[in-house]
């Protein structure tokens, strides 16, 4: 078994270089006007349905970015928030955004303000709807549960990084009868959202959200580049499995042994 290091090894340079190449290549080709196909993602299509439902019921919506900070997950969450707030502004609905991270709170406030301004109704922006609750996990969760029940929200969106509080929130959302859409890159929390939400966005669909919602060529290109990157990873998995299997079947072949050892050296188990 090879040793892991906190630094990249040549295999990482090559694989990451390939992924970056595919993403940038596809972004550039999309920008040149090439048509790209993106499959339907029901969870993301349901966002507009959920906003419409809240508008019809005359009740507010809740958008919770989980415990995300100002990182990739948090920024993607803000991107989806922007879409939801714009739709809400268009239909005259309220979106309550409870936050656990003070840095993300400032970003969320700006995003909501901009979304209302973009829809031509900046006066409808209510600063008290963007709320910093607490940076402690369960204090934040209890605050969100309180909002769900007090405001009797019609729709709840959970997009961001979640830990154990995911089930507490989504089950309370069920109790108030809210239509719930969730998306998280936290693989341990996906089953909980699947069990208690109406729509759940799984894995990298979370990162496809901004491309899916905006249909911007740059983002669509990036998404197609990501898929090519995943093909590279699938290829490596197949190559690794074949190399190690063949080596165990033909223990006498030195070159196979060397190849398998090389693979294990550069792709060590963590």
């Amino acid at each position: 078994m090879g040793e892991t290091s906190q630094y990249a090894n040549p295999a990482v340079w090559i694989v990451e270089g390939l992924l970056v190449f595919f993403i940038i290549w596809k972004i550039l080709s999309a920008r040149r006007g090439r048509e790209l196909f993106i499959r339907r993602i029901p969870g993301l299509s349901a966002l507009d349905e959920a906003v419409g439902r809240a508008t019809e019921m005359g009740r507010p919506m809740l958008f919770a970015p989980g415990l995300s900070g100002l990182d990739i997950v948090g920024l993607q969450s803000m991107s989806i928030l922007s879409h939801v707030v714009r739709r809400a502004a268009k239909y005259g609905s309220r979106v309550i955004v409870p936050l656990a991270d003070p840095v993300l709170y400032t970003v969320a406030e700006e995003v909501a303000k901009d979304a209302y301004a973009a829809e031509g109704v900046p006066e409808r922006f209510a600063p008290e709807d963007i709320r910093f609750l607490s940076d402690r996990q369960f204090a934040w969760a209890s605050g969100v549960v309180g909002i769900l029940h007090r405001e009797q929200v019609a729709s709840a969106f959970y997009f961001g990084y979640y830990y154990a509080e995911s089930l507490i929130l989504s089950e309370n959302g069920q109790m108030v009868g809210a239509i719930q859409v969730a998306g998280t890159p936290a693989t341990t929390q996906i089953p909980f959202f699947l069990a208690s939400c109406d729509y759940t966005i799984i894995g990298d669909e979370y990162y496809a959200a901004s491309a899916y919602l905006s249909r911007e060529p740059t983002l669509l290109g990036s998404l197609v580049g990501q898929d090519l990157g995943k093909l590279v990873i699938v290829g490596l998995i197949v190559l690794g499995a074949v190399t190690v299997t063949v080596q165990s079947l033909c223990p006498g072949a030195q070159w196979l042994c060397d190849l398998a050892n090389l693979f294990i050296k550069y792709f060590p188990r963590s």
Partner: protein
Amino acid sequence: MGVVWHWLAAPREGWYLAAFIIAALVLGGTALAMLTSTPPRYRKTVVMVVTFVAGLYYSLEFLLPPEAWFFTKPHRNPLTEAQPVVATLAQIVSSFALLLGVWNLFLIHGRAVAKRSAGWYNSAAFFVAFFGILAAGLLKDAAAGKSGQVAENVYLVLFNGFLTSLDSTMFSLIAFYIVSAAYRAFRIKSLEAALMMAAAAIIMLALVPVGAVITNWLPEHGILSAFRIERVGYWLLTGPNMAAQRAIAFGVAVGGLAMGLRIWLSLERGSFFDRQL
């Protein structure tokens, strides 16, 4: 470069520390004022450059091996040595934002108390709790002797007695929510739900002694032993389940890389990234 990092990060006290803090605040304020007064066109460029340089630091820190020929000291990447300082810088920015968060709490709850709106007493409780634990926290460090001891005891009661217990209470609620969520998830309405129910039943039985008893009649060795419920459960967890988990993890990692790349190179579009800065 290392000398500068060490000088910046060296511990200070007294007037020297006060002067350092004032100088840092003046410097920060000046930078902020300059950024605010910069025309939007150039401001966007400044933000792009800062984002790129910050991203470049972390990329190079990870990608450049310590044994690279251009590092004078063997097995030492100077960018790695600078990490504590960079982390401190990020922490300082977060601390400023925490003040904004607290200000937001004060505004919302202050308004609720002032207007005597529904549930205003909960907002009043927030102020009592906030100032109570703040006073206890400050006094336990500042006061000496008996009053310091009293403040420490009060702080411990508030922290361990209230906060930690309330955290644990919320956490333990999950057990009940799991039952209600499982009930809904396991209602057999489709083929997928039936498969999930079957897999869950096997895993649950595999983890309890009564499950092992059910297939105890099967031999412990040989082909038939693979059908013992504890082995089937283990296979489900480490085979199909692990494969799916890893597939999702790979997808998430590639998606994160693409998103990170777009932000790093200021290519992100479609939401707040393309607005006029």
